[in-house]
């Protein structure tokens, strides 16, 4: 194993400790990414339609992300009704950055192998 390969592997393993493994679950990561992309906030019914998962699973994942401080649950007025929307927090944005940086390392590792 070359020094370069050892360095990349070390970087990969070291950086993985910075990523919150509780977010690194398929649905939670998707929810977090969608909510981060739509800055305006997303309604529960819209997430449910998009992800096609049960109310219970979606609710549980949203609650987990909220408890971790990555998303915020806000009551808003919409057509004279109170509805709930979910918005990303700074901490949530930061977590996405960490995950994407980690993925970049994986990509770098794959690219160096291809060479």
């Amino acid at each position, binding site marked *: 194993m070359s020094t370069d390969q050892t360095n990349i592997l070390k970087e990969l393993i070291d950086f993985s400790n910075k990523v919150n493994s509780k977010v690194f679950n398929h649905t939670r990561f998707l929810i977090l990414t969608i909510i981060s*992309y739509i*800055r305006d906030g997303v309604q529960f019914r819209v997430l449910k339609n998009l992800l096609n998962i049960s109310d219970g699973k979606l609710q549980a994942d949203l609650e987990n992300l909220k408890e971790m401080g990555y998303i915020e649950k806000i009551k808003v007025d*919409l*057509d004279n009704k109170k509805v709930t929307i979910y*918005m990303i927090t700074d901490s949530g944005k930061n977590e996405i950055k960490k995950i994407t940086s980690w993925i970049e390392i994986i990509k770098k590792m794959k690219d160096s192998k291809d060479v």
Partner: protein
Amino acid sequence: MYKDFMKILAALKYWDLPLNDPSYRSNFQSRKILQKLTYICKSLKIQMDYTFSLYIHGPYCTTLADDYYKYHNNVPKKSTTYEPENEEIEIYKKIKVYVFSHPLYNRNRVEFLEAIATIMYLKDINPGLLDDEIFENTKINKPYLSDRIIIIATNVVKQLLFKPEYLTDELKEELEMWDRAED
């Protein structure tokens, strides 16, 4: 896209539409209305460089979102530097007559605008779609919109897209015949 956003503010000013500061997290309704009305204006050929995609809340443009967060103070005051052209004023009038004067606008304005904008988007990307296909596609994308709202919005879109030159003598005659039948 400062100029495009100023155009939207000019429309809001013309309609005297009350909207809150979109940068406040709780003002979700104002952000949704801004997105949908901008798409409706663009679809009716008000020249704008905003690019929309059919998103989870209907047509949505991230650059427009950047603009209303950046120039958020302009929204409640509707302060703009843009002077609309006559053709644009005609489009504003059309929207006022067919959308804002519709009874559904007072009761379900956000869902009504979302349905209209979604149907216009579907028609823009596929002009050959039949009414049944539009209904089906809208229902797939927005299952939470009621059948009634989708059907009413489809008719409103037809009114918005109708051009005077479509009104041929033959059609005029037929419409008069229907009017007489109603009497």
